[in-house]
Structures are given as C-alpha cells and as structure tokens.
C-alpha cells in the first residue's frame, strides 16, 4: 500500500518507461507521442488548408487511444494515487524560485504562478501557457520527435538525429530556465 501512495524513485521510473516502450513495439508500433498533435490537426480539418495534413487519421487510431489512456491515467493518478504532491526539491531550487517570487515551492506538482486560476486567467498567464504550447508543438514537429520519440526511442536505437534533437532540447530548456523564467517572473 505504501508503494501506491509514496512517490516512486527514479530507478523505478526509468525501467518502467523502457517497459512501456517495449510493449509499444511489441504491439507492433513505433513509440512516440508528438505525431498525435498532427493527427489531431488532421481530425480538426487542417487537410482543407494544407496538403501536409491530408492523411488518414484512422491509421493512427491506436496512438489516439494511447493519448486517451494518458488523460485517464493522469486523472486516476491525481485523484487516487497522489495524496500528497510534495516534491523533495534541492534547497537551492527552492531558494531561487522563492527569490523570483514563487510561493509554496515544491508543495504541489505545478506552481500556482503558472497553473492556478488567477495565473492562467490573466493575459500574461494565458500567453505564457499558449506560447510555450506553440513552441512545444512547432518544435517537436520541426525536430521530428519529442522526448519519447527522440530522447528515449531515438537515443536507445543509436540514431544521430535524435542526439542532435536532444542537444537542441537542452539548449532551449536552459535558455528558458536560466534567462526567460527570471525575465517573465
């Protein structure tokens, strides 16, 4: 029971992610999530505007079911499996974020400064979420994959494009956390 309510350490997480990849391939498909963003565009009718989206989304219905599973899994976790969202952060991280004006640092999964109702219903908060979403969606399709497709699948199958993509992920992530976050908060 304790295993259900406590956070799982990293050395459990890594292998379980690898097992997800194994099962995905065992079921006959390539592991990755971000192609679904294109599939959803196709379903919404993007094919009428650009030939790029003229694809048969029914061929990817398995991936859409995986995505529905992700949402259900998130709901199950947040409702039943994570009674306490406290995160054991580095004291340095807590101090830095507190200095930037963040409150309750590490007492929940998502900071109120970005995810609370007050934050996302302000113009600034709304734009932070929308624009970072645009960067994620544009970037992952431009790069040809996301964390699961490039960082996990691509690196483990020793593909050079994935190594370059992961280097890009870190360049962007470091610019964001070291320079943009202090600028916007």
């Amino acid at each position, binding site marked *: 029971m304790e295993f259900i309510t406590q*956070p*799982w350490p*990293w*050395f459990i*997480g890594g292998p379980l*992610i690898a*097992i*997800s990849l194994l099962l995905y391939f*065992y*079921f006959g498909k390539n592991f990755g*999530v971000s192609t679904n*963003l294109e599939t959803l*565009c196709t379903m919404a009718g993007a094919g009428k505007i*650009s030939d*790029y989206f003229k694809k048969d989304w029914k061929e990817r*219905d*398995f991936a859409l*079911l*995986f995505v529905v*599973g*992700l*949402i*259900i*899994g998130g709901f*199950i*976790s*947040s409702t039943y*499996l*994570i009674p306490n969202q406290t995160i054991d952060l580095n004291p340095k*991280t807590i101090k830095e974020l507190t200095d930037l004006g963040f409150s309750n640092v590490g007492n929940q999964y*998502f900071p109120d400064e970005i995810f609370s109702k007050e934050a996302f219903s302000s113009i600034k908060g709304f734009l*932070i*979420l929308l624009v*970072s*979403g*645009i960067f*994620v*969606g*544009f*970037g*992952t399709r*431009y*790069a040809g994959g*996301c*964390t699961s497709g*490039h960082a996990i699948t691509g690196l*483990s199958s*020793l*593909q050079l*494009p*994935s190594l370059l993509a992961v*280097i890009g992920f870190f*360049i*962007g*992530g470091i*610019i*964001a*956390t070291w320079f943009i*976050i202090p600028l*916007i908060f």
Partner: protein
Amino acid sequence: MKNIKFLILGIFFAIVLSKTQAISWYRFYEMFKFQSFHMYGIIGGAVIVSMVFMQLFKSGKIKDINGNWIVPKPKKKGTIRTILGGTFFGLGWGISGACAAPIFVILGFELIPAIILLIGALIGAFVYGLLSKKLPH
C-alpha cells in the same frame, strides 16, 4: 477492439510519469538548472534499459505480437531541423514544464491550463505543417 491495449498502456505510462514526478514543472526546472539527478536518472535509466531491448529486437530475440521483427523507424535526417526544432521544443518545455506526453497527462491534473497548452501545441504543429516546405531542414 484490438487496439484497446494501447489505451491500457497509455494509462500505465501516465501513472508511471505521475508517480515518478516526471510531469512536475519543478522537476524540469531542477533538471535544466542541473540541481537534481532525479530526471537524469529517469531519462538515462529509460534509455539504458531501452538499449537492451533494442539489442533484443535487433537479434530477433523479441518479436512483435504478430511474430514480425521489430525495427524502429529511422528518424528523419537533417541537422538544422533537429537542432533548431529541438531548441524551439526545449524553450516551450523549459517554460511550461510540459513536453508532448505530459501535456495529455496534465489534462487529468490541471484541466484548463493543460487545455491552453494543448491548443498552443496544436497551433504550433499546424504552423509547422503550413511552413514545412519553406523551412530549412
């Protein structure tokens, strides 16, 4: 429904990401600030164990459910697209703490902010589709 197994796998994957805190904004902040080993342990561990599986795929010791050899699709080549696209992705990831899979998992945690993120991601994917022929790859 023969694909229902993907739904169950999605639920499993989401629980793994949630329980290991791999969807938490703070964990990514810590990772990009090099202040914690946690995310490196998760991603590195996933890559190393997956490498073993890839070898088993390659040698045919593990075949798929239909008995076919498992061959991961080669990633599209292109230095500019991978570095530049990756950097755009990283900017969004670093600010919002959400990459592609977590956006959907976060829908189950914080519905409205995750919907805004998702709409953004769809706009981003759509813009890429529109510009794909004009962008350097």
